[in-house]
Each structure stands twice: as C-alpha cells, then as structure tokens.
C-alpha cells in the first residue's frame, strides 16, 4: 500500500486521505449506534474528555471573558456607548470565542489523550488482540471515545460561555464601572435564541470534527513510539486548522 502511495502525487494522496477519513467516519457512525447499547463505556469517555477538562475550560473562559470586557470597553468608550459592553461580550463569546477556543483547548487537552491512548493500544497490539477475539475495536474502543467527545463538547462550550460572561461582568461592572442593569438588559435585548443555537451548532460540529480527527489519527498511527508521537502532533494541528476553517464556513452560512 505504501508503495502505491509513493507513486501517487500530492493531490491524489490528499483525495485518498479525504476518502479514507470519510470511510472511517462512516464506519465510526455505524458503530456509534451499536456503541450506544453500552452507555458505561461512553460515560467513561465523557468523564475523560469532559469532566477532566473542566478546570482548564473554566479558567480559560474566565480570562477570555475578562479580556473581552477590557478590549470591548476601550473600544466602545470611543463611541460613548460603554453600556453596550454586555452585547459585545455575549455575542463574542456565544458565537465565536466560546466554540472556537473550547475546540482548540479540547484538541490540546482531550484530543491528544485520545490519539496517544488509541495509538499505544495499536502499538502494543491490544487492538489486534481484540480482533483476534472477534471483538470489534471500532465498537469498543473508537466509537465510545468519539461519542464521548461529541457529547462533551457542547457542554464544555456552554460552561465556557457562562464563566466567560461572568468574567466579563466582573471586569466590566466592578472594574470599569458599567452599570450592571444596562449590562444585562442590553444583552438580553440583543441576544436572541438563534445566537445561542448558532453557538451550540458550532460546538457540535467542532466536537464531531475534533473527536473524529483524534480517533482517526490514533487508530491509524504507525505502531512505533515515533509514530504515536507524530500522530498526536497531527491531531492538534489538523484539529486546530479544521476548526478554524469550519468556523468560517459555519459563520458564513449563518449570516
């Protein structure tokens, strides 16, 4: 197979990778339905991907919200409309920063763990052993991890947004002196349910993309120490780039 790969040019290889990932995605989806019958495995992965990312997500959310308030305040002050800070912070967090920053952190925190875990399973022949016992590793290893990531991501984004909003409120209201009633009432007046759902949709898509990349890279990592290391790196790079690309596409389609 690698001999064939070498003869192909770059474009063909790219097309082939896309096809490979798509086929893998299809198999993963099919196995995910079956994996739903074993919720215990999924709960374990939600814990790994979600609960253990809570601290980093909340910490980052707070500071992103706080810096949004600082920047927004200094910008809005020029137009004499500091009271609109609530709108700026809420829309910025809900629609852009929440989903994107969470996805980037998720790729770094949970995606790398997934890739190296599955990659090491492959390298130590655990996956092969499962196949020998007629246990499908797609169903018992890949699918629960994928589902766990997909379920955890929107929840992480929601937590990020709420913590960020309170961070923005803390800086905007306590430090910058924006009126607290204006902050919330203007926010409530300008943020619609569709803005919230835009954020949720984005987080779901990012969750699928990041989890798929992490599981795919781990599952197909070369069974060596170097191979697992490279696969982990590729997970972060690919997840980040694809998250930002998807973000542009989703934003353009929502506007």
């Amino acid at each position: 197979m690698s001999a064939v790969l070498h003869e192909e040019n770059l474009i063909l290889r790219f097309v082939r990778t896309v096809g490979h990932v798509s086929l893998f995605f299809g198999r993963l989806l099919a196995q995910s339905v079956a994996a739903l019958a074993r919720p215990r495995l999924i709960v374990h992965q939600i814990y790994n991907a979600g609960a253990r990312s809570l601290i980093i997500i909340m910490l980052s959310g707070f500071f992103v919200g706080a810096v949004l308030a600082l920047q927004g305040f200094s910008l809005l002050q020029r137009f004499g409309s500091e009271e609109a800070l609530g709108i700026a912070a809420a829309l910025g967090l809900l629609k852009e920063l929440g989903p994107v920053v969470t996805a980037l952190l998720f790729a770094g925190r949970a995606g790398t763990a997934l890739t190296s875990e599955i990659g090491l399973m492959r390298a130590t022949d655990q996956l092969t052993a499962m196949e020998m016992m007629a246990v499908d590793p797609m169903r018992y290893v890949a699918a629960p991890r994928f589902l766990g990531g997909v379920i955890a991501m929107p929840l992480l984004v929601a937590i990020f947004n709420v913590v960020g909003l309170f961070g923005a409120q803390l800086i905007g209201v306590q430090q910058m002196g924006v009126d607290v009633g204006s902050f919330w009432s203007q926010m409530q007046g300008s943020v619609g349910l569709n803005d919230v759902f835009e954020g949720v949709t984005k987080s779901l898509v990012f969750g699928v993309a990041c989890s798929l990349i992490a599981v795919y890279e781990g599952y197909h990592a070369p069974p060596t120490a170097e191979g697992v290391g490279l696969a982990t790196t590729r997970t972060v790079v690919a997840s980040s780039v694809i998250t930002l690309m998807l973000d542009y596409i989703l934003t353009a389609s929502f506007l």
Partner: protein
Amino acid sequence: MRPNRTLEVGTGLFVLLGFAALGFLTTQLPSSGLKIGGAKKGYHVLAKFDNIGDLKAGSPVSMAGVRIGDVDSIRYDPQDFKAAVTLRIDPQYNQIPDDSDASIQTQGLLGGKYVGIGPGGSDMYLKDGSQVAFTQSAIVLETLVNKFFANFASRDNSDSGSSGSDKSESGGSTESGHDTGKEKQK
C-alpha cells in the same frame, strides 16, 4: 467497582454543570426567555410614556446621574394608548417629591435608554404604587432626522449651503423638544 464511584460522580457533575450552563444561556440571555432571580427590594412607581423607544426591563433609573433603581416591567396600556412602565426604586431613596418628572434619555450618543427622574418641589413623596404625573417620551432619532430634513428642505429656498444646515439643525431639535415636551396626566 470502587473507582467507578469517582467516575460517575465526576461525569454526573460535569453533565449537570453543562446542562445548567446551557439552560442559563437559553433562558437568561434572550429577552424572550424566562426570568429567574429573586425580587429585588424597593418600591414600585408607575410612569406612563407616549413612546419608550427601546427602553427595556432592567434599564437603569437615575436621578442627577446617580442610579437609584431600575425598570421593573413594561407593558402596553390599551386604555390610554401609552406604555406603562413600572420603576423599581431602591428603598433608601424614599424622598422623591411626588411631582417629579420622568423622562427617557439616552446613554451616550448610541447607547441604551434609561429613565431620568427630575425632582419636583412638592412636600409629598412618591411611595409604592403611586404614579409619576409628568413624563417625557424618548426622543426617537429617526423622527428627529426626518424633522431636520423637512426643515432643511423648507429653508433651502431662502438660505443656502452649509450655514443653512447649521441653523436648521438647531431648529429641528427645538421643534421636536416642543413635540415631546411635558404633558400633564391625570
């Protein structure tokens, strides 16, 4: 089975926290959503305005630039075709003369609206349930601009150029000031 305990508690905590956050975002941020949160202290005063602009519940109520309360609720009163705005005033500001006037003003040039209270001279004070007699509506920017252009067009025949626009600008704003001026209510 023991390590499963931490796992389940951790996952449960995470999922609950996530859904709580999601619930907060969907119900608290959009204005259409439910409002949770305890009732704040203070007394309520009613004011009826011809036009409230984009005043919203939660907007501040201020006197001499100091925040003394906020807008509790806004509804339309079909009897006299006005907006009935309930103001919640903090309990320590209980010495507002009952002939004070309420006007809707704008924070900054493009900022949100707030209700400004101008003190009257009466010895009686506003108390819970009373109504502000004098109100002044929000100045709607579009109306102002329309008036300005109408004014501009009519003066264009006599005056010319940039000096005309300066004059008619001041003319436009005073005219609308008459329009939205104080009015007595029962």
